[in-house]
């Protein structure tokens, strides 16, 4: 087994995702600790992408028709070729929509340990991952053995700027796999036009599962109107069909950067917190004093959100 750290690059619509640079930033000190190199595994991709991967020592690339756009079947097969060719001690993958398809499949197929929802990795005799579990209510230290191992790292665990560097790393061409072709990519679907652009709002009134029923949306809207702001939401509200997808904040929604983010009845699951890292001030209102949102919020009020909305509207009037 080698001593190298392999970052599996992620790209959509022809651009590398920030997660790739975040992983590269995390990979460099780990590779130094292990006494190995920092490698990027690029599936499909372009020469322009290679030129953005200057933070890597080498880029191992598999390129073949059908690998241009993400397709779990083809990409898993290609990732297996990359791992086979580079024999890394540690594979870093984003805990993203793309990474979720890859990480588990590679772990099960290659029978190598995997940690999910990883926030950091240390390399000593064993690789040890820190992970966030149970909706952010527990942190775990996970022994992944001496390697090879896989860590699926959440967005925001590293900073993209650390891993972003122009350059011309050496490219190792890896032979493409044989793929059955049972999954076909047919195109990207752009998000629907939004009625309200929550990324442009200075103040956001954000609602989560704690609102209980659909009437809560109206209550939050009244407060938002009084504040001259917009209503945003966490995933369960959008899945219930109470607000459109364009209002969703978090991992599978939008990343927002308001001056004030007022989180009402939002527990603060890691998937949601990914979307509010850029908020200047977070104020959380929740009836559960143990809600993880209170650890990341600047201000917290343990109270019923309906009472808070009503009182705040009165104060504002």
């Amino acid at each position, binding site marked *: 087994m080698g001593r190298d750290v392999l970052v599996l690059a992620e790209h959509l619509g022809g651009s590398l995702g920030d997660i790739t640079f975040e992983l590269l930033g995390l990979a460099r000190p780990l590779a130094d600790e292990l006494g190995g190199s920092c490698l990027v595994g690029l599936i499909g991709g372009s020469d322009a992408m290679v030129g953005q991967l200057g933070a890597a020592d080498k880029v191992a690339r598999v390129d073949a028709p059908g690998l241009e756009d993400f397709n779990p079947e083809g990409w898993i097969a290609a990732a297996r070729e990359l791992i086979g060719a580079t024999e890394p001690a540690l594979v870093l993958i984003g805990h993203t929509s793309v990474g979720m398809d890859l*990480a588990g499949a590679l772990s099960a197929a290659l029978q190598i340990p*995997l*940690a999910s929802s990883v926030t950091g990795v240390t390399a000593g005799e064993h690789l040890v991952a820190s992970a966030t579990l149970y909706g952010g*209510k*527990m942190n775990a230290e996970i022994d992944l053995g001496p390697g090879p191992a896989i860590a699926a790292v959440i967005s925001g665990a590293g900073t993209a700027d650390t891993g972003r560097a122009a350059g011309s790393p050496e490219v190792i061409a890896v032979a493409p796999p044989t793929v059955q072709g049972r999954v076909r990519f*047919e195109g990207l*679907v752009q998000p629907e036009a939004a009625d309200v652009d929550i990324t442009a709002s*200075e103040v956001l009134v954000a609602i989560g599962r704690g609102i209980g029923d659909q009437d809560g949306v109206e209550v939050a809207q009244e407060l938002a109107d009084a504040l001259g702001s917009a209503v945003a939401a966490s995933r369960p509200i959008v899945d219930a069909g109470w607000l459109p997808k364009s209002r969703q904040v978090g991992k599978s*929604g939008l990343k927002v950067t308001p001056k004030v983010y007022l989180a009402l009845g939002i527990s603060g699951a890691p998937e949601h917190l990914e979307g509010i890292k850029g908020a200047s001030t977070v*104020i959380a209102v929740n009836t559960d004093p143990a809600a993880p949102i209170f650890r990341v919020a600047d201000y917290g009020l343990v109270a019923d959100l309906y009472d808070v909305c009503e009182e705040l509207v009165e104060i504002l009037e």
Partner: protein
Amino acid sequence: MHILVPTKQVPDLVEELFLDDDGTALDPDECDYKLNEFDDQALEEALLLKEQSGGTVTVLALDGDGVNKVLYTALAKGADRAIKLTGPEYTDVQGNLPLAKLYAAAMKRLDYDLVLTGVQGVDDRDGQLGPLLGALLGLPCVCVATGIEADGDTVALHKEYAGGLMASLRVTPPAVLGIQAARQTPRYVAVSKVRQVQQTATLEELEVDDPTPPLSKVLAMAPPETGGGATTLADVDALADVLRDKGVI
């Protein structure tokens, strides 16, 4: 389409969580377990697919507290078969890979076109169930899937990315899909109907081997440190003061 829906129980996060004596896992005796909410989405999508294009829905659950209720509820909602995997209990299985191996062993004895799982669970520490199952069964798996539509011999779906961007994918069954959300809120079924089903229907049982040990080991588990947390506000007036201070009112 013949659809399998493997489900799992997860700790209810509304309740306070307690660690076991080693401090490496939750204490199963102190946890309230409930059906993984994303598995409920997978079941709903499976039932909708069946209603649109025929076939059957079979729900699977590993034995454990509350599992009979999960399976009878699924039957009351319209599932055709409910199979309980017996031998180990859910709380004996450490991680999703060992769980996936039990499900894969059971599924090899069943006929199916699609396996729909919940996209994730709150206890996923070694990968999500769907992709693990896909690899063990030798089938393609697409996660974060929505809008599943059977279309002749293939299945069309959307895979969600960040910011509302999606990919249109087409899959040739058999395949595993990790469901993010069903097209409609999971249906409600009255307790009286579940009771009625309980009296007339039988749960099938399928024995599986003991779980294999996980590939990784939890060294320690603890609630995140509270240091640097929120400044506590006494009341709504104090909250309004913060808003004034930030210049937004």
